[in-house]
């Protein structure tokens, strides 16, 4: 929707300062960048990853002693949604070879490979099959397919991008399998952008030494998801999909092998028990925890379920303190809130401005510094612009680009963004964009090795749910590759494990009892219940009107 009259009034302040700012830019003068000390200061005060406030050190489990964002720590230090001692584990509802938890790109690829390996498979997924972050990835998928490139350089770019904090066997697996993933997707009939002779079109991305980003229009993830989901549907004799039935707890056997999970049918509220010889976690990231209240690019169900369940089963995680924020997510219009606006806009000279149309930061600081400066201006100084829906943002003065580079340059340089805003009645060559940092990607996750195995026999994990592939910073196009590479490896290895002969010796939830005892012993006060499955967007007013205090416990039809 177009800017409201009130917002248009505020835009006049931006227009008032623009001539002087454009003149300044023409003189190659910039708002001064921060010194290294100032950077450290603003980061520690305002960047969620660097702030010391709002953090919590977990007192239990495999990562005991590690510090996380409070919201993440609360998930790790949470109780199960079922009482383990009240569950009859003799009543098995489904029996299968491989249980895949999560129906996004990683889980779906894993299911196909496990079926190829001769296994019966169940996919249990929280929403519809395919509802995932995979489907939202636009840009592309990295793979060293061209002659001037090789897995060697893909490895190097990936580990350099991650500040050398990546887990190396995972990076090697990613670099080696990437071209195999592309060939596999092509054989399933995925449409890649290609030249006439069939060669894939490749582009550079931030941090790449070779053009390696293959794509499918500007909806690469959606195309991947459509194709792998369709392939699963062709195999209904081997793969059963249970939608709206997320796993809420893993099952271990008497020997500590993973042997299934408890599912929760969110429509009928029933629980069911799946006995499986192997289990694969492909549950994605945690954007919908809205760490520190940030908007997110993630899909509705991204609530860290797999990491939570694995933690209780004794599987730790790495790099989970690190979250990718993008400084310029959309703050208005509502339809686009949280979605990304490329750095290119600032690269082309657009200033970032407060409610008075004043600059307050150098527009091309590193991403984390830029995010922190925006947060400071809006939340500490109170100089943000409040939208009609109570969202806060700062101006990104895109019309400057027209003045600096000539009329028509916004549309020419930013065609997709131009259309995206034009559709909602905003001409970004004439009016500024309203932006605010947004939560994009869970850099860390469950510990696995290069074969997608966790430390629990029979338990595998893949995709955004795992940690270490990207270290503390992920390159564009490596997330889709992570999903396919490790999804395929998990499926293949789980099938081989099952075919090697697995004997399950008694289903058990003792690990949950033990974990909850640890919580109690550690004195964790009022632990939450997780996985939370879905975020709750009820307004405070609505919550009050539901009379939480006055309502009788057990009231019918509530």
């Amino acid at each position, binding site marked *: 929707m177009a800017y409201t009259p009130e917002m248009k009034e505020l835009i006049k302040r931006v227009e008032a300062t623009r001539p002087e700012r454009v003149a300044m830019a023409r003189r190659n003068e910039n708002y001064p960048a921060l010194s290294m000390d100032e950077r450290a200061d603003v980061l520690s005060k305002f960047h969620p990853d660097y702030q010391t406030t709002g953090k919590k050190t977990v007192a239990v489990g495999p990562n005991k002693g590690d510090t996380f964002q409070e919201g993440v720590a609360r998930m790790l230090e949470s109780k199960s949604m079922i009482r383990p001692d009240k569950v009859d584990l003799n009543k098995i509802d489904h029996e299968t070879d491989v249980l895949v938890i999560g129906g996004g790109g990683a889980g779906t690829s894993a299911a196909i490979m496990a079926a190829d390996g001769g296994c019966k498979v169940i996919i249990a997924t929280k929403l519809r099959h395919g509802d995932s972050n995979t489907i939202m990835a636009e840009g592309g998928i990295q793979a060293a397919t061209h002659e001037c490139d090789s897995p060697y350089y893909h490895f190097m770019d990936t580990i350099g991008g991650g500040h050398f904090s990546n887990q190396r066997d995972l990076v090697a697996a990613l670099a080696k399998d990437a071209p195999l993933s592309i060939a596999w997707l092509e054989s399933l009939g995925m449409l890649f952008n290609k030249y006439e002779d069939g060669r894939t079109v490749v582009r550079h991305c931030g941090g790449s030494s070779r053009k390696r980003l293959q794509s499918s229009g500007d909806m690469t993830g959606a195309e991947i998801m459509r194709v792998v989901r369709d392939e699963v549907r062709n195999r209904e004799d081997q793969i059963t999909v249970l939608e709206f039935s997320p796993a809420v707890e893993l099952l271990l056997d008497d020997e500590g092998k993973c042997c299934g999970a408890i599912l929760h049918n969110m429509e009928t509220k029933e629980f069911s028990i799946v006995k499986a010889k192997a289990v694969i976690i492909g549950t994605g990231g945690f954007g919908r925890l809205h760490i520190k209240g940030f908007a997110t690019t993630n899909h509705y169900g991204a609530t860290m379920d797999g990491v939570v369940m694995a933690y209780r089963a004794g599987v730790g995680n790495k790099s989970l303190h690190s979250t990718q924020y993008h400084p310029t997510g959309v703050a208005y219009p509502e339809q686009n809130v949280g979605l990304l606006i490329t750095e290119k806009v600032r690269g082309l000279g657009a200033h970032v401005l407060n409610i008075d149309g004043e600059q307050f930061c150098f527009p091309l600081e590193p991403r984390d510094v830029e995010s922190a400066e925006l947060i400071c201006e809006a939340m500490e100084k109170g100089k943000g612009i409040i939208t*009609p829906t109570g969202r806060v943002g700062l101006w990104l003065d895109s019309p400057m680009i027209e003045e600096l580079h000539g009329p028509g340059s916004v549309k020419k340089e930013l065609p997709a963004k131009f259309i995206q805003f034009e559709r909602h009645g905003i001409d970004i060559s004439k009016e500024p964009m309203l932006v605010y940092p947004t939560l994009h990607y869970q850099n860390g996750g469950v510990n696995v090795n290069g074969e997608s195995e966790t430390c629990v026999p029979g338990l595998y994990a893949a995709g955004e749910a795992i940690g270490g592939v990207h270290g503390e910073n992920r390159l564009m196009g490596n997330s889709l590759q992570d999903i396919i590479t490790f999804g395929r490896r998990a499926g293949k290895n789980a099938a081989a494990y099952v075919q090697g002969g697995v004997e399950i010796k008694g289903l058990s939830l003792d690990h949950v009892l033990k974990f909850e005892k640890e919580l109690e012993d550690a004195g964790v006060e009022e632990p939450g219940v997780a996985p939370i499955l879905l975020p709750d967007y009820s307004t405070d007013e609505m919550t009050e009107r539901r009379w939480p205090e006055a309502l009788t416990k057990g009231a019918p039809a509530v």
Partner: protein
Amino acid sequence: MCETDQKSSKNTPRVATGDRAILPEGAKTIPVYIMGKMYEVPETLTIMKAMEFAGFRFLRGAGCRGGICGACPTVYRMAGDYKLHFGLACQTVVEADMYLAQIPFFPANRANFNIDEIGGLPEAIHALYPELFRCVACNQCTKACPMDVDVLGYISALKQGNIEKAAKLSFDCIQCGLCASRCMGEIPQYHAAQLARRVYGRYILPLAEHLKARVAAIESGKYDEMLEELEAMSKEDLEKIYVEREREPDFAEIGSWQPKETRYL
């Protein structure tokens, strides 16, 4: 469980967090009719967030919340007007006196096939979806499409045996099912389109020959030692070769550029 406490100074405004909307002082509300019942919601919200503001909590009818997953197809009309409109709840802004309902699921037949055996001829598609020929060209499918896909165009192309055209015309399909919900011929358009795209990608679009060579090299173990070398390298050495690595020029024509160092290709 969403974190909302972010007060850092006396200037800190009360703002919406996550996807939860709030009604700032002085903001306007408008009436909308959700399944016939009136609710007052802030203007400029999407239908999805307006329903959440009104107190609904989604299980079905919400997915990516970014216009690409097809979970939230919605039908609506404006007071006093017979005309039906179609859109995605996450991409359509509420207007005053809008009457709306979601159609989160619509039944549609899907035919199984084997991608390795189906081949690239249109007859195979016709055999799996004979109902394609029940199309009466009413164009309701196209009118209902929230992605502006020319649905009738690709159905017609499929009937004529033009798989390439059907694949290209249907590329933006998000499989929300609104087309099928409006179809007089009871055609599952989006499933037929998915089949057409996969057949086109597998059998008609030329396969990537350079990729075959790379796959063979990887499977022969050509890169295993190189990757092991990198895995074992000290951080200092890795940093050194990382910084010194050659970068393919931005404007080099594809296939024309060769690095000086070719040992690791």
